[in-house]
């Protein structure tokens, strides 16, 4: 087992373990905290793959942005400190079916691609450091992928305008 494999396995256990705790914890704030651990471990995978920009963006946006807002909303909505009722509810069977189908779909797609035998580009013990990705990402986003990039920003603007519309106070 190489070091790389060991680190990968560590992150995998961390991701899956914390993801499991997200759905089984009964205190909703604890769920959110475990979700932070999951997202952080995924950033670890990005680092392992040599995607430095993506890893930093994951931490900045998902943990520093999305999760902070989520914790903020949980704290605003009167959640008592003592654990809530059971995490199961009446719709557990349809939910299980939907999740099972998703897992099968993803598994089938992932299984069709040959992943093995490809070395990951990370440095192991000497000074060989992976290629920085920021410059090439920027080039791609402003040339080849300019249209999808702009479309995504259009979607975000629509979401922002929608949020402003719904929170607008009626004029008196």
């Amino acid at each position, binding site marked *: 087992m190489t*070091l790389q494999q060991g680190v990968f396995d560590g992150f995998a256990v961390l991701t899956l373990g914390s993801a499991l705790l997200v759905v089984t914890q009964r205190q909703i704030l604890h769920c959110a905290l475990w979700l932070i651990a999951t997202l952080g471990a995924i950033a670890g995978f990005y680092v392992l793959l040599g995607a430095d920009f993506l890893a930093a963006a994951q931490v900045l946006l998902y943990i520093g942005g999305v999760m902070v807002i989520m*914790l903020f909303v949980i704290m605003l909505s009167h959640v008592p400190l003592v654990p809530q009722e059971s995490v199961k509810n009446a719709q557990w069977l349809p939910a299980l079916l939907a999740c099972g189908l998703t897992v099968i779909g993803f598994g089938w797609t992932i299984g069709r691609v040959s992943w093995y035998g490809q070395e990951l580009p990370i440095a192991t013990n000497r000074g060989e450091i992976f290629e920085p990705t920021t410059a090439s990402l920027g080039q791609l986003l402003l040339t080849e992928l300019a249209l999808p990039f702009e479309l995504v920003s259009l979607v975000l603007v629509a979401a922002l305008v929608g949020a402003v519309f719904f929170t607008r106070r009626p004029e008196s």
Partner: protein
Amino acid sequence: MGIIFPAAWPPLARQLLVMLGQCAAILAVINLTVMFLIWLERKVSAHMQSRLGPMYAGGWHGWAKSIADGIKLLVKQDIVPTGADPWVHRLAPVIAFVPAFACYAPLPFGRQLAAVNLDIGILYVFAISGLSVLGILMAGWGSGNKYSMLGGLRAAAQLVSYEVPRVLSVVPVLLWVGSQNLSLIVDTQRHFKWFLFYPNPLVGVIAFLVFFTASVAECNRTPFDIPEAESEIVAGFHTEYSGIKFAFFFLAEYAFVFLSAGLGAVLFLGGGDGVLLPSWVWFLFKTFLLVFVFMWVRWTFPRFRVDRLLAFSWKFLTPVSFANIVLAGLTLHWLS
């Protein structure tokens, strides 16, 4: 070196030892700096209010005050309130404290003096420093106290709001350098081509002022210290903390002050650029100058009101930074 690193050791073990050594060095330097800053803050505030400040501990101008304070906090009783969520309460100071130190890794303390030469330097610092707000939120919620909770909520709203102009204010510098590498940013500014005034003084000064204001807010310092406003919510998110856990929050705050001042020096004041003296002396001089301005601001201005604080970020600083980015782009266009 042969004794410390026997050649027979696997390279991985050696590399880990070097990394541990680097971490220990950063921790030691930052802790000493923070203790000095706490003493300095007491002295600066005292002299601004026509007092003398600490004069007793250690003899000369109370230089040992921070050491005495540190020992006091270490031996104090560690209390976890009955109504608290124990693990969230215990973990919160650690989560607030660790990012402050992790951020120092790519900071160049002089020419070729960064612990890690990171290509995504600035992005890394912004991403990691954003994590400490989680510690504040966890402290606010996990203490089981409504004042703590209010402090945590205020901290979240404030830090998320000011993160936006802080990141945007740096964009002109990135446009001019074409890289996020902090060492490269310092190298580009050699021979007094500091970004504060070099390609376009207007853009440079606006960017610096926005960055500095947002940094003061990110450090939770007066006039932006509403998460711990003692006149309204006791001590905010750290109301229920005592002893070493309180010390962690305190250390984190001052570590962020020094980091923000250092970043300001690196991004806008040429980092270690200067004449005669070695580069690290210039870096420390500029950084401590900015730290002094931080303290000056703190002991001069009164506290903002919550709603005005948020409006100031969203309705003033953010649009100004966007306009500044356009100006920086135009400057670049005219120059080329």
